[in-house]
């Protein structure tokens, strides 16, 4: 079969690819889901630790997209969608090539930017969300800090450390 030819996956991110034009912002398709490292870390219960931030708060990108954006493994990037924005790490995807797609493992980081729209089918749209990704110098937040920043459940009035601006939008006007 013709589509059996399995794609070669480059091991090194090349910054000097002749056909890779440097961009500051990429329009991508966001997918979320689980992978074995995120699953192992979450189910062991190590969610407060730095390990979880790296396992779950990481956008896995195609190496060519990374070259275009000028980022290398464990650089920081900000991902924006219609529902919110979050700072995550970027890393070279093991499933490459998938140009124009990024994959963020499910977790508090991905939650901020996925769509809660269920189309009356009970299941939110976790996959195939249009997003943009840009390089940033900000540090991705640890789980507890992220939960406090995003949901502000126990935020004190004088505490003005909210970096993410307004609370996540659930587009309640639609209902």
């Amino acid at each position: 079969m013709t589509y059996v030819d399995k794609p070669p996956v480059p091991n090194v991110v090349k910054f000097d690819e002749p056909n890779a034009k440097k961009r500051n912002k990429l329009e991508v398709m966001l997918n979320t889901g689980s992978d074995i490292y995120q699953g192992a870390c979450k189910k062991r219960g190590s969610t407060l630790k730095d390990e979880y931030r790296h396992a779950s708060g990481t956008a896995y990108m195609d190496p060519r997209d990374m070259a275009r954006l000028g980022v290398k493994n464990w650089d920081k990037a900000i991902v924006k969608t219609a529902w919110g924005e979050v700072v995550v790490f970027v890393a070279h995807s093991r499933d490459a090539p998938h140009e124009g797609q990024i994959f963020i493992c499910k977790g508090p980081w991905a939650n901020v930017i996925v769509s809660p729209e269920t189309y009356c089918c009970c299941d939110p749209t976790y996959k195939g969300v249009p997003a943009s990704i840009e390089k940033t110098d900000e540090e991705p937040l640890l789980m507890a800090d992220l939960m406090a920043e995003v949901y502000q459940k126990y935020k004190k009035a004088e505490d003005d450390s909210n970096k993410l601006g307004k609370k996540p939008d659930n587009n309640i006007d639609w209902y």
Partner: protein
Amino acid sequence: MAYEEPITDYDYIVENCTCAFCGCNCDDLVYLVKGGNVKGELEDNVVVSGYVDGGHVVGVRHACRLGASKVMEDMDQRLLVPMIRDAEGNLVETDWDTALDKAAELIAGSVRPVFYGWSETSIETMKFGLELGELVGAVLDNQATICHGPSLQAVQNAGYPVMTLGECKNRADMIVYTGNNAMNSHPRHLARYSTFPRGFFRKRGRFDRTVVTMDPRYTDTAKMSDIWVGFEQNGDYEFYNAMRAVLRGKKLQKDVISGIPKEDIEELVESMKQAQFGALFFGLGLTHTLSKQRNIDIAINLIQDLNKFSKWNLIPMRGHFNVNGFNIFMAYEQGFPYGVDFARGYPRYMNGETNTIDLLTREEPDVFMVIAADPGAHFPSGANRHLANIPVIQIDIHWGPSTELADIVLPGSFIAVEAGGTSYRMDGVPIYMKKAISKPETCRDDEWIVNELLKRVQKIKGIAPREASK
């Protein structure tokens, strides 16, 4: 990966334990336990019956990376004592009576409570949960609402050509994984049930089987399969329709469908027709994309069409070890698999209305009880934001993202390690998961916690307890 020395520093071996991670429910695990006293029979260092009191699991044999990491849990983040959030917003340790009374008061006084979770606990716990839900008019929902809910809707639409995993192991010569990455989410599925094991009619194991993976990404499962069909993102529905058309002898009008050339689709359909026994496993890639349950509808219809030529079956790849259990339990008890609303006094189920995500997005619930689940980690923030406005009761074993949003924390116990219980495998086979070690002294069984909440709510409402809950 660095070589790790085998674990030799253990005192007891507990055999035939069941893994409490994914829907595979591998029931051949061996726990290596250190310390404690055996309550039961012991032969050499193998615990024949009973459990080890006071010990802890230092090693697991046969489990995958996921199962082993869950069983050898991170004790740093284990919830050990009940906690209540104070006025400052800090979780403060308290005693069981205070925490349970506070939780029961919240539940009894609520107008629209939602009890979400249940997939990582036992059927025995759900029994009390259902009674409590009926009493207070709650919505009972489980993780199917964010994973395989559309699959259950499709089953209601189109049928359920199901098999057991044993049949697949002994008979299947063509395995199709679509929209899931079994090597990452169900690592032993291929090794134990579908691809690698030698079966009665498949004596050579992997060599007698063809593995097809359909996924837009070139996943780890795709890397080890014979055929990878990398259709476009959101192209599932069109692709399955094209396959059905070819199967019914129609000519395809377009040359390329969802990124796949039509000759390849014809060739794939031909090889699927030639299979003696085919098994299709579908995952969240189908349920989370835009067409949702219609993707599954068409996949089920495809399987029905294939049965005109050969024998084909399908199984949804369920995520948690007992997510299928809640659906089977609720369907048996109330007639609906998930998202059951008791607000009107009788069970009601309406997709898009009585499901947790929709309720939270519309900001309806006034009390939210999380039991053995983690909405903080898995709900979209547009739904989660309502949890910041309402009291949240959490019954769980680890400090997770949901604990950051919880007002009352009740530490439960770990089913299949610290407590026994029944669970249902992804193909609907019930398995009793036995207790291997004792739970931490200050924790309680999930069953006890929910029953205690039920008794306290009955007391507040002035209702005599039923026989079962006394």
